[in-house]
């Protein structure tokens, strides 16, 4: 793994995902090609049933595609066993969920420490890293609080701290502002923008246009297909340049 900065964080090739078999099969994703460069900030939009959650699960290695290949930070996910998938989820991906998904009755600090525990980071170092991550989301003053003692916005900030504490290649946010009021939404988007500015790769699902507007690139999914892919900044969309013969081997090398 020596690709360095030039290696794309995310590369989907011809990925389809269907549930069920035969005539009753539901095709959630159809032949999706996607390439996300390191440091990009991508918003995925689409109506419900458009396949954006399935895409998220595939990207997060929580689900495997039916066909096609998925390279995360240069690793073909299909080759990984359970043990290695756990490693990838631990080191390469940080999750932010719509419903926060903090472990209940467990302090904010401990929630942030969780990925580090599974990464076998020693106790003292773990605490330092967790406090740093909480500092990045501005929550060091509430780190001993339980999730039910925090507001929705604060819980989501803890979740973001947990997502970035292992310094993953990719932060995946599944409707991070879906359950939040507008003030908290602004707060969370600020943090995500800051993370992007600090060089993190972010892929975010949302159905709020004003939230998507914060991203540098917006992808619309319709019926499991990429319908539009446009950059809100000046740079051209990368997927457009993607050639079919730009082989997987070249990417994973």
């Amino acid at each position, binding site marked *: 793994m020596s690709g360095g900065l030039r290696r794309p964080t995310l590369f989907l090739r011809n990925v389809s995902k269907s549930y069920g078999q035969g005539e009753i099969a539901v095709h959630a994703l159809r032949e999706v090609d996607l390439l996300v460069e390191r440091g990009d900030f991508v918003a995925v939009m689409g109506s419900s049933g458009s396949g954006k959650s399935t895409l998220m699960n595939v990207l997060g290695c*929580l689900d495997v595609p039916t066909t096609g290949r998925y390279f995360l930070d240069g690793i073909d996910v299909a080759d990984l066993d359970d043990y290695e998938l756990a490693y990838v989820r631990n080191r390469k991906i940080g*999750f932010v969920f719509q419903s926060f998904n903090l*472990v209940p009755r467990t302090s904010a600090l401990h929630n942030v420490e969780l990925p580090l525990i599974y990464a076998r980071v020693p106790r003292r170092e773990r605490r330092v890293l967790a406090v740093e991550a909480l500092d990045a989301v501005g929550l060091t003053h509430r780190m001993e609080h339980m999730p039910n003692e925090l507001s929705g916005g604060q819980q989501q900030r803890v979740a973001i701290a947990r997502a970035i504490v292992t310094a993953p290649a990719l932060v995946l946010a599944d409707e991070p502002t879906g359950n939040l009021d507008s003030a908290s939404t602004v707060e969370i988007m600020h943090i995500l923008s800051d993370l992007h500015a600090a060089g993190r790769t972010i892929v975010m699902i949302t159905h709020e246009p004003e939230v998507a507007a914060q991203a540098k690139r917006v992808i619309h999914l319709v019926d499991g297909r990429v319908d539009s892919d446009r950059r809100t900044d000046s740079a051209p969309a990368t997927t457009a340049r993607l050639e079919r013969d730009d082989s997987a081997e070249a990417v994973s090398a």
Partner: protein
Amino acid sequence: MSVLEAARMALHGVAANRLRSLLTMLGITIGVAAVIILVAVGHGSAVAVQKGIEGLGTNVVTIQPGGFGFGRGSGGNRSSFTQLTMKDVKALQDPSATPDVKSVTPVVTGSVAATFGSASYTPNQFIGTTPSYEEARKSPVAAGQFITQQQETAHSRVVVLGQTVVTNLFGGQDPLGQTIKLNGIGFQVVGVLAAKGTNGVQDQDDIAIAPLTTTQSLLTGVTGGLGQIIIEAKSSHQVNAAEAEATSILTPTHSSNGSANFRVLNQASLLQTTASTNQVFTVLLAAVAAISLLVGGIGVMNIMLVTVTERTREIGIRKAVGARRSDILAQFLSESVLLSVFGGAVGVAVGLLGSRFKLVGVQPAVEPYSVVLALAVGIAVGLFFGIYPANRAASLRPIDALRYE
């Protein structure tokens, strides 16, 4: 994930549901405590009975009249009942015929009412015997002296009392030298027996002993039969030889239709029989207790299954942030083991505490092996019944677990 980390998480999980954890532990606690206490009761009663039999003397063979009942040489019937007499004692005392016999002690038993001043008491046992009884029955005196040969020959009205009789007649007074009345006849107290305690059946200190000669004239008449003859062998290896010699001497004069009408009780074989009976008793008690331990284990499994279902989402979160199968397995297995270790430790404490009290008349004697075994089995039960729920948790797919509502 280190063992310490798993233990910390498990502790957190156990503490999160205190009442439920406590009730689950209670199942194991009761199981472990039951094993310890019941085994202790079984062992305690075995010890008591054994002590009682040993209190009768271990190198001795007892001969009683009558051919029925249990014991060797039985088979006679009531019509051929022949009493044992002093003639038999004389015959048994012949050293040429019974080289393995150390002493022969005739015993008559009866019941008398004893009075001292205004106090009156009926000892459970009143016996008349000779001086050799003291050694054969291992009943040394604590104060004064036992009956002497001189007193025996002289038909002296002297008596040796057990502790229980002393307490009942004299209260706090010194009984030595006092004269008590047995069935209205005055006897001088010359000795007090050392306390022996109970043998599991009766109080061995509830006894009064007088010279055989005196007792026979007082109670049954000189020609009356003996209650029993105690034969003491020279050593523990010679008990069986002494028994054979005694049997061969008595059989010609005490048999009809070819079967003996006296019975011989060998203490050693009696000891063996009761030991094996007690073994069965103890195993039975332990089995009952083991069942309660098993039920406790099923309780652990039940609660762990509920816990896993309840925390499915948490398991999903943990897997999403990088927990491996083995991490989840370790966490939930630690939790069930923690429950059973805590429950087991409390059970050991309760068991040891409970064994200090007398239960159904038995002083329990804790067997160290039962403590170790109960705790080990308790923990093993937690581990065994924890495997299925923990495995179920570990096998959850993160995507399903996260979606679980």
